């Protein structure tokens, strides 16, 4: 099966055009959609994550790979849906109220998508109500909160409290991150996990999903 190996390569190199063409051809030749995703696309993004973690890749390489992955994935999605395949998990992500920075959050969103998660990005400066609404409409498993300013960190706590008051806290896992956020702060405000960087965020999301299934 040489085509999907080329798919792996195209994603690794961040070549969206190739990735798209290869996927198209593979589907035309009757390849199994789920096997394309799990056998080649996600492993490619795992390798991308590894290279990024090792500091062999910078963000641009990583994002170009994520973009190639997404292009191929969009093509496959109808087949996946009809086969009843599930994403690795559903994530609602956003930068909390008052905070307009979103580079870090965008990175995490891309990496999660690359890791097979269905990501709903609410953008920056997101009030608690919008998180609540998104959890309800998307059936999210995970809410990922980002803050880049110390003055907006308290809004993380407020958002988590609002999720509790809306009766959603038990249905979801909350992960937090951003420059001023610490592991200790995450625990203090009752988050389920903290991630120091974008690629660790994927591993964390997977752990949270596993914990969710186990519970």
């Amino acid at each position, binding site marked *: 099966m040489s085509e999907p190996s080329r798919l792996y390569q195209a994603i690794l190199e961040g070549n969206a055009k190739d990735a798209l063409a290869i996927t198209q051809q593979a589907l035309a030749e009757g390849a199994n959609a789920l096997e394309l995703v799990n056998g080649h696309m996600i492993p490619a993004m795992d390798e991308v994550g590894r290279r990024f973690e090792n500091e062999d890749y910078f*963000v641009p390489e990583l*994002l170009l790979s994520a973009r190639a992955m997404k292009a191929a994935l969009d093509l496959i999605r109808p087949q996946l849906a009809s086969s009843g395949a599930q994403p690795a998990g559903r994530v609602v992500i956003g930068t909390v109220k008052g905070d307009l920075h979103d580079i870090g959050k965008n*990175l995490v969103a891309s990496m999660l998508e690359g890791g097979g998660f269905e990501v709903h990005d609410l953008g920056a400066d997101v009030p608690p109500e919008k998180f609540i609404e998104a959890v309800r409409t998307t059936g999210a498993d995970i809410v990922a909160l980002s803050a880049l300013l110390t003055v907006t960190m308290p809004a993380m706590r407020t958002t988590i409290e609002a999720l509790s008051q809306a009766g959603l806290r038990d249905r979801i896992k909350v992960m937090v991150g951003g420059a001023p956020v610490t592991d200790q702060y995450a625990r203090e405000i009752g988050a389920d996990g903290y991630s120091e960087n974008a690629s660790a965020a994927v591993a964390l999301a997977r752990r949270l999903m596993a914990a969710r299934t186990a519970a």
Partner: protein
Amino acid sequence: MSTYTCELAVSNPDELVFGSAPKPVRCGFDMEIGAGTVFPEVNFTLPAMEISDATWGEVVGHYEEMARNVLKRAVSLQAPGIVLEFELLPPMTERPEWGAEITALLRRHLAAAYEKSGLKSALRVTPTDIRDQGKPPLLRTGEAWEKLKRSFELCIAAGADIVSIESVGGKEVHDLGLMYGDLRSIVFALGCLAPRDMAWLWDHISAMCAEAGGRTVPGGDTACGFANTAMQLAHQKMLPEVLAAVVRAMSAARSLVAFEHGAVGPSKDCAYEGPILKAITGCPISMEGKSAACAHFSPLGNIAAAMCDLWSNESVQNVRLLSGNAPEAYAELLSYDCRLMNVAARNGQSKLLRDWLTESDEWLSPQAAILSAPAAWEIAEAIVNAGDGYQRCLAAGHAAAGILRRAVDEGRLRLPAKELLWLERIEAGLREMPSAETGLWDEMLEKHAGVFEPSSYGWPHFDLGH
């Protein structure tokens, strides 16, 4: 009303030294900045806390405490003068009265210290550029701009001696450019969008200072949201250092526009492009480096001081250290840093100390390599010899890439393979850029449709020529 600067304010790199600028600035309580003495600029902010009506009393208490402690330290160390910077937090610009209240509070403390102890001082106030809220951001109309404008007006009225801003025009495109390592978008943001917003914005800021009577000095802008974002991403190994270095050089072409539209310095501390601006405009600059390690790490710890007129800690929260509160500790640190520079100057040896500060960092990072006096001067010259904002940006990029290439070829700068690869990509990317910005607009309007709002930059009614 713009005229492009066409020649440098200093005739050779050796005229670029700390403490002295061709065009010193008088402001505040008997301060003269750039006239031979380097002063500390102490920046401080709140610890992690919410800002609301409920916490406002506590907020005020923090600023009272910070001002009291910092000024006590400056007096105790016999500082020849001090600048305080009050960088508004977003809610304080959203509600302009809040920012003005803190401005007035700080000004009161400075007045009291001047009266009681003869401490010379000035207050820099920096409203937050909150115009990036919309997607795409609206820069020239709407509530955010109205509030920002009001914030400047009220802070000027409340006693700001210097006003600055970290303006965000073009950042919406630049962020994407950085993340995808997309040089065309980066150049478009820094060379086409940002200068247009800067020109428009700084015409307004200068006018507000003038209308209020002229005792408030329009300080300058910083490419913080552009070049410092790149520096931080490079620090976190998310972006190549060579890209951050080239972005820094190109950002000078952008930050220069403030000076062409009324700013007179001191430029803002986090504008590491300061030396290039100083070479072009002759205005005094504020810089930050090792003693801003409380706010961010950098490969520019010493070299950043080489040509500074104010020396800053960028930002420190009012947290408790073993000695006392952090702002006071940083006031002490900066005071001693400045003392050393001023001693060297007193002994007629500014240039020697400048060269040591430079040698300390120059070849350990591409970002430092483009900030030595000769490098800054070379980039400055490339800028003033180019045409419009776009061409100045490109010229700065070429100059910086050229400095790095020469240093690599001559073995002074050693780079890992993945950085070298990116240096090549950047060189190629610069070569492939169209010679005039007209060749870029259509591509960018399509590529970033919905990301930026053309009318925020005067499109399509502005003059694309020189």
